[in-house]
């Protein structure tokens, strides 16, 4: 990374740089059965973009984030009591980091991107089994994801198709994440065929996890049937003796009055089965190593523009295995041309020893001003 910064910063400094970004301020109140957390942050995201010609682009993002309020947290407050963990504290602190810094070049036959870059794969909205580089927050699935330090080559093939090769280097070739994707279309459907190799969690046969090199195979499809949007996406291990993976299916529709409805079902066979949840399941999920704690989930969203500048959104998602759910209405107002205000509430339903039922009420206010 250091050599990349040394190489790219002079390029940015000497070229005509487009500077933009946003300021974001958020306040959160999390009400748990016996405790509450109140915190807020101010974030400045500075985007730098330079195009020396139409085939070369250097991009970078620097994030500055300052936190206020409760900065000492305890994971125990968010996991069921029956796991009998005494304490697992962690803290959040002010930060300044280079989220992305990359060079993108377009040759006649392919595009090549090197550096810490935004990568987002898959067709799902709330979950993306194909995206082995990222995980999403269910309450805000479209929030930008951290950059991935990778090499990416996109090669146009066939008629409008793309062969996508992504390598996220690590200490050794074996430890590096590799993904290859062939994307094309058939009629009104887009599809992809994917293969990957990753040092990943695998089931240890005792409701727990071990690590091993895993070859994955999968794919995605998105299109339309009877005016309904349909999509599906899966990534599965290719080891016949240790077969596990994830799959998501989704459907959406827009009514003539503009009301948009969408639902997704997600299955993760690596997740815990009912009554077999361990602290490891939570830990690996918090670390982003798994896309869910348990196996079966549902996500539903309805959206409507009340006026040109005010939109409402109702999100509901739940863990079908432990019967816990969250209902989260959201209101967004484009107060000014580049300023958006959001008010979000989320109320949980379910027993106290369930994934979502352990929370009670969350309030979130977010202001974002672009420049």
């Amino acid at each position, binding site marked *: 990374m250091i050599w990349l910064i040394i190489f790219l910063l002079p390029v940015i400094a000497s070229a005509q740089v487009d500077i933009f970004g946003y300021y974001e301020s958020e306040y959160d109140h999390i009400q748990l059965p016996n405790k509450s957390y109140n915190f807020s942050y101010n974030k400045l995201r500075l985007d730098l973009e330079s195009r020396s010609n139409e085939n070369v682009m250097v991009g970078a993002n620097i994030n500055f984030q300052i936190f206020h309020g409760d900065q000492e947290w305890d994971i125990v407050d968010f996991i069921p009591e029956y796991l009998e963990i005494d304490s697992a504290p962690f803290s959040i602190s002010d930060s300044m980091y280079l989220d992305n810094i990359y060079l993108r070049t377009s040759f006649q036959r392919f595009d090549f991107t090197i550096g810490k*870059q935004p990568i987002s794969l898959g067709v799902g909205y709330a979950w993306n089994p194909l995206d082995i580089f990222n995980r999403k927050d269910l309450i805000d699935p479209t929030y930008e994801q951290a950059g991935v330090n990778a090499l990416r080559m996109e090669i146009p093939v066939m008629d409008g198709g793309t062969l996508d090769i992504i390598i996220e280097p690590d200490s050794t070739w074996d430890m590096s994440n590799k993904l290859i994707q062939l994307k094309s279309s058939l009629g009104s459907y887009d599809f992809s065929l994917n293969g990957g190799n990753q040092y990943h969690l695998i089931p240890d046969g005792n409701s727990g996890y071990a690590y091993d090199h895993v070859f994955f195979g999968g794919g995605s499809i998105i299109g339309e049937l009877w005016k309904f949007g349909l999509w599906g996406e899966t990534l599965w291990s290719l080891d016949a003796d240790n077969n596990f993976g994830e799959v998501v299916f989704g459907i959406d529709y827009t009514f003539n009055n503009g009301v948009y409805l969408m639902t997704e079902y997600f299955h993760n066979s690596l997740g815990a089965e009912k009554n077999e949840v361990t602290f490891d399941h939570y830990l690996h999920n918090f670390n982003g190593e798994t896309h869910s704690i348990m196996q079966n989930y549902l996500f539903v969203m309805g959206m409507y523009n009340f006026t040109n500048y005010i939109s409402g959104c109702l999100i509901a998602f739940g863990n079908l295995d432990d019967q816990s759910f969250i209902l989260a209405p959201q209101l967004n107002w*484009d107060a000014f041309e580049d300023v958006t205000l959001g008010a979000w509430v989320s109320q949980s339903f379910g027993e106290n020893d369930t994934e979502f039922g352990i929370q009670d009420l969350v309030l979130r206010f977010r202001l974002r001003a672009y420049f």
Partner: protein
Amino acid sequence: MLVGQNLKIQIHLNFMKLLKISKTLRTIFYLILGINSTGLFGADFSAKTILDSMTIVMQPNSSQGKMEQEIITSSNIKRVFTFNYYSEDKGKNVLIRYMEPRKVRNNAFLIKNSGEDIWVYFPRTRRVRKLASHAKKQKAQGSDFSYEDFSGSEEWKTDYRVKQKPSGERNNYLLNFTPRIGAGTSYDSLKIYVNKLNYYPDRMLYYQNGVHLKTLNFQDVKKIQGIPTAMRMLMENHLEDSKTTIRILEMEYNVIFDREFFTERNLKK
């Protein structure tokens, strides 16, 4: 598309010449008889002929331009968006890339096959996602235009049945559109007033559930590369009492695009 016209096709040039001759003869005939053309000549054209003439006049083979979209709400709040616009194959394939405001900078849409296939690109995540065609019913960046309204006028032929009605206006024909069964359009009828002289639309009325929802006015028609072009299009939403204006800042017709221009690869550039 709503913007632009096309005179590339030689047949059409000949057709327009014939129209001009016809109009000249008509003018002479009026002078002699002292009557307007509506009764004698307007009715001679079938609805399909008028529609064909209109789509030829307003449908460029290809175009690229820069446009400004201004939304004005009932409470007089204004928002201005600027976007680059590219179209080929008589508006069948369209690429729209937003430049301003910063919030939507580089957000882009690729619309192919007259709106049947839509891809959206989000630059912050560099993510391209295909949308089902129902998404074209949604408002474009909160404006009074839906993505469907940007679709090619070929849809008027494929999705609707058209009939000519008395316009009650001296200068315009009136075409009445009702959706074909299973067409899946947002509107349950459209009315288009078409200028008798140049076959350019004067205004379009959109109806939903029997209610007059929106009106699109084509204003300030000027010739660019010899092609009449509405430099300003005003969409009025009668239910929300809001307005959206699309103003053409730059426009060029008969552009030759690279073979890969209307592809996902270019969408991400």
